[in-house]
């Protein structure tokens, strides 16, 4: 069952996920009115600083949120089915089979007590009812696919016998075991070294091409986005402040936060010029200020920004931005 051509593979509309403290007094709006879409074969990057709600968004898609969190509103259409309305049993058939996920810490994602072959073969056994021996053979193939040398001996080994880079690739192998349509990678390379990271990224790109995977890449590193992604979603304080095709955003960011972020990053080729820093710090998600959440740090903020929350404006070229300035630009562009 493939997605209809006019409909993206995954379409999220106005999704909000909140954490509510035990006493019910503190509500953290970790994901607030987020909309995004991704088509088959595409790579979508989600960037944002720590605590901006990226992981919560990923967990919401798979509906594996911690008990304190709750999807309060919105829809998630995946291959024409609304994930929000699915029962837990139905979701179990989606997770691991049609949508898979790779997490940051490869050691925490692997069980130290089981062999690699066992763990790579597990999703195949669970979702396809394959026999153990067949699953084992498939595990060998998968390890080969993620370029692990001599997979026949590796399948019999345990996670602690592998290096960090190899473990992360094994987690990747588990992710693609059932040939999912969508792979969500939550900062999969933060624990890797530069040269190992380069290997891993090129591997992910090849896998994606071969299997026609859609890939959601969560990171706080704009460099990875520049290298890997077609589409970009920038999150700030739980909201999507800007989205659109990567090269367009890099060439002409519409939101002041994106602009500031791009300017604040040191460049290899630049000599010792001062960086343009973003002053201040991100707001507390449980007590967001009135108006635009970036207003306090925004160099271009004006009266309206402090009073009214900007909605998501649709700009040309499939871009969106949550900024009053974008509305001005849009009108002048239309005129």
């Amino acid at each position, binding site marked *: 069952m493939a997605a209809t051509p006019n409909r993206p593979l995954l379409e999220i509309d106005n999704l909000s996920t909140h954490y509510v403290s*035990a006493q019910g007094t503190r509500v953290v709006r970790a994901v607030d009115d987020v909309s995004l879409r991704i088509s088959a074969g595409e790579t979508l990057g989600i960037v944002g600083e720590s605590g901006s709600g990226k992981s919560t968004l990923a967990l919401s898609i798979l509906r594996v949120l911690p008990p304190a969190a709750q999807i309060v509103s919105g829809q998630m259409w995946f291959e024409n089915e609304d994930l929000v309305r699915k029962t837990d049993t139905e979701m179990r058939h989606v997770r691991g089979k049609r949508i898979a996920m790779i997490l940051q810490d490869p050691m925490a994602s692997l069980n130290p007590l089981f062999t690699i072959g066992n763990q790579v073969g597990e999703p195949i056994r669970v979702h396809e009812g394959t026999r153990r021996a067949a699953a084992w053979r498939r595990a060998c193939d998968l390890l080969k696919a993620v370029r692990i040398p001599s997979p026949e001996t590796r399948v019999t080994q345990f996670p602690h016998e592998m290096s960090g880079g190899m473990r992360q690739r094994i987690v990747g192998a588990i992710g693609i075991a059932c040939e999912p349509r969508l792979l969500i990678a939550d900062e999969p390379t933060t624990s890797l070294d530069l040269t190992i990271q380069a290997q891993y990224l090129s591997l992910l790109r090849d896998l994606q091409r071969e299997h026609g995977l859609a890939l959601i890449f969560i990171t706080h590193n704009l460099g990875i986005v520049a290298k890997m992604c077609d589409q970009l979603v920038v999150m700030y304080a739980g909201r999507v402040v800007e989205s659109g095709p990567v090269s367009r955003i890099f060439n002409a960011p519409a939101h002041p936060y994106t602009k500031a972020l791009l300017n604040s990053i040191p460049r290899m080729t630049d000599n010792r010029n001062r960086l343009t*820093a973003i*002053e*201040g710090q991100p707001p*507390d998600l449980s007590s967001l200020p009135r108006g635009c959440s970036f207003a*306090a740090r925004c160099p271009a903020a004006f009266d309206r920004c402090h009073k009214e929350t900007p909605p998501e404006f649709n700009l040309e070229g499939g871009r969106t931005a949550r900024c009053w300035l974008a509305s001005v630009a849009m009108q002048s562009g239309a005129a």
Partner: protein
Amino acid sequence: MSMSSETIVLPPSVSTRSAASRLGDLPMIPIIILAVIAFMAIFADVLAPHNPEVGALTARFKPPFWQTGGTMDHILGTDQLGRDVLSRLIFGARVSMVVGFTAVIFAGVVGTVLGILAGYLGGWADQVIMRITDAWLALPALTFAIFLAAIVGPSMWNIVIILGLVYWTRYARVVRGEVLSLKEREFVRLAIVAGCSKATIMRRHILPNVVNSAIVLATLMLGVVIVTEASLSFLGVGVPPPKPAWGLMLSDGKQGLMVGYWWLTVLPGCCIMLMVLSANLLGDWLRVKLDPQLRQL
């Protein structure tokens, strides 16, 4: 003359807020029980209706007032020597409190200091202290206490020292473990770079960070210590008679249990249980409260 142009906005001081919210969910029941016991201990001279150590042999084995034969003069009855049970319980609270707290503090200070030394200095200091601790922990606490008591002879202060000697190892263990992880933390490394001596680092950087665990452990140990004191008194090697100690009362009353003098054992038993339970509840609450990781939940 600030060189960075930005203005840095600090969050409103959170210390006041968190102090208030920290008091919000105090475990009231154990605190009230402990407060009542402490109150009795402090004002025993005023509160107790009779002298706890002298009784009238004419008035032996009087039951509590609500049973036939009981009088309002001895609300909770009298014991085999005609001493007022209520007065003995009240003065017994003093003994339990004094023995409990001093022993716990004594053990805590010794254990914490040795734990810090072992953990921070490492090397042979660690080897020596931890081998002693291991050997100590291998001895059954009660047997060891009886053995010591038999050597030094029974007296209230001897009991305190004995209990301290028996239980310091628990602190040393816990504290050393904590120090081992603290000493790898960067603020300790920076203190070395700043030129602080080992003694200064242990006092200023290590000690304040292990005090929490020591306090939690102390609260939990309070129960254990009181039970041990009671057991020692029960076995006759604890607080010497006629001083009123709850364990001693329990021991003296045990023959009477079969012939229906239940109040001689049940009442001190209840007191011990309440105090131990309160100490443990309070300790558990403190443990959760002072552990930043658990506090987040």
